[in-house]
């Protein structure tokens, strides 16, 4: 009798601990982001208030209005940054996907000497820290005259994304039985047709999630972009965030609004592919 009561208590305690732990963890994960969103709607006076205002008295769209109107403090050309970010991220993602499909297919379908060495070699290029790379890249791009152009940043991002894209696509391709392509070849396809008509459609969702990964990386990148862009012609949003800072002050409200603008597309895309994304990472890595 005693025993069952204590066992029941222990169970109850474990359950409570589980709930509390989860609640705390989820709060830590969610609150910083939500706080940013909240502050993007609050007037600067309230953000800066001392003692703090916990329950917002007033929510408005002033920061967004200022941001899109280009009339905010310092007149940050947010829409231009948004456009730059879009052009650069989408173009570099598409190119990285094409290059990555070739590479991923090669690793998944062919056996050749030094395969794992080449694979790790490609991965290692991704590990080169952006700061360390941006110095020499800056020198070369300056020589070529492609500093502060979309082209220069796109080129850099393609290179940055290709290794990881190859890794993911390799993983997805491996899950597709080789016999599928063989069956297609026997059915009268060339190897090229077998890829486009059979393997590609089957791997489509995986390739899409590799693409979204590449997009997010480009969309969020700062270290390279901050060196390779100089003006509104090529500045991306992460670089643009710095426009809200001046020597001594930070326009927190405006910055929060821009942050929300940055997060939204990322949020939507990630939700769309989260399932494939996890599958891609694990299968690519574990079964690869």
């Amino acid at each position, binding site marked *: 009798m005693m025993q069952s009561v204590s066992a029941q208590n222990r169970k109850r305690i474990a359950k409570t601990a589980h709930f509390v732990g989860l609640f705390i963890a*989820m709060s830590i994960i969610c609150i910083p982001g939500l706080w940013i969103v909240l502050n993007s709607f609050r007037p600067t006076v309230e953000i800066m208030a001392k003692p703090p205002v916990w329950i917002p008295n007033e929510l408005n769209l002033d920061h967004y209005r200022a941001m899109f109107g280009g009339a905010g403090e310092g007149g940050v050309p947010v829409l231009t940054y948004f456009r730059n970010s879009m052009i650069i991220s989408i173009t570099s993602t598409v190119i990285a996907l094409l290059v990555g499909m*070739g590479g991923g297919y090669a690793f998944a379908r*062919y056996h050749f000497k030094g395969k794992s060495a080449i694979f790790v070699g490609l*991965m290692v290029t991704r590990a080169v820290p952006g*700061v360390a790379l941006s110095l020499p890249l800056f020198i070369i791009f300056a020589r070529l005259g492609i500093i502060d152009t979309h082209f220069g940043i796109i080129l850099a991002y393609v290179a940055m994304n290709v290794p990881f894209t190859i890794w993911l696509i390799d993983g997805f391709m491996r899950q597709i039985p080789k016999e599928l392509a063989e069956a297609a070849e026997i059915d009268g396809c060339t190897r090229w047709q077998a890829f486009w008509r059979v393997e590609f459609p089957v791997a489509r969702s995986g390739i899409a999630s590799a693409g979204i990964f590449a997009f997010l990386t480009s969309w969020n990148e700062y270290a390279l972009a901050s060196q390779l862009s100089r003006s509104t012609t090529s500045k991306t949003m992460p670089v643009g965030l710095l426009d809200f800072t001046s020597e001594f002050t930070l326009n927190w409200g405006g910055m929060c609004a821009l942050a929300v603008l940055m997060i939204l597309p990322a949020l939507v895309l990630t939700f769309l592919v989260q399932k494939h994304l996890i599958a891609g990472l694990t299968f690519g890595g574990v079964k690869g």
Partner: protein
Amino acid sequence: MKRFKMPPWLVLLLPAIIILSAVVLIPLVLSLYSSFTPYKLTRPESLYKWIGTFNYEKALGDTKFWAAFGRTILLLTIALNLEMLCGLGLALMVSKVTRGQRALRTAMMFPMMFSPILVGFQFKFIFNDNVGLVNNALQSLGITDMAIPWLVDGKLAMFAIIFAEMWTSTSVFAILILAGLFAIPQDPLEAAKVDGCTPIQSFRFVTLPFLMPFIYIAMAIRSLDVARAYDIVQIMTNGGPARRTELLWTLIGRTGYVDAKMGYANAMGYISIFLAIFFTIYFFRKLTAARAELGMGV
């Protein structure tokens, strides 16, 4: 005469190899060369003056460099291990949830979407001694009425940085480990139960070994990306106050762009590159070994 024909795998890999050579390899060669010169951005002719290993000797004899180097290793070790542990804990907690698990998993991915630079600003804001969320909360709850100088005090700043770094990256571990937990075959777990293992024992001897490859994937992914911390640190403290949070990367950035000593910066950059490559290869090796042990594919 038979024309030389490239094997198809090479044709497929060639674009990747060309792009990576052009954008990564060539700059690295250039930076290797310039690290043997006293190259300064402001004086282009200095690129042609060979000074041998002077920059490396200078770096190795520089206490500022060693302080940053040690701090970087320390930060990586602490952050990666804590992220792994927290990720494991979070994954275990989420895996036990029966209702609303999908929503939790989605929420877990939240920090992954944040640009590192945004994370930097976000936590700079949150840890701000005047209007930051943390101090506001502490003061309103009456725990303290001082403005705790989170980002000004050296130790606290380090803590704040590690916190921000963990916030962004723990979810990578949690999500992969969670995927691993779902993929564990039930048979060995049941066998362990029949063999008389306690829950802790079966976790230790069955679940954990099976999770190792997943942990190594997460480590490998993270090791490709460790320098993300640069963005965060640069925004939050920029190595300050008084270099007390200086990491290799911020030191390189400052030396190269602010002091314009490209040659010297590249020499230090090379050291950081080797550090990154070492981490990457180490984890890829571990991953392969763990995979082979569990017999998962070749």
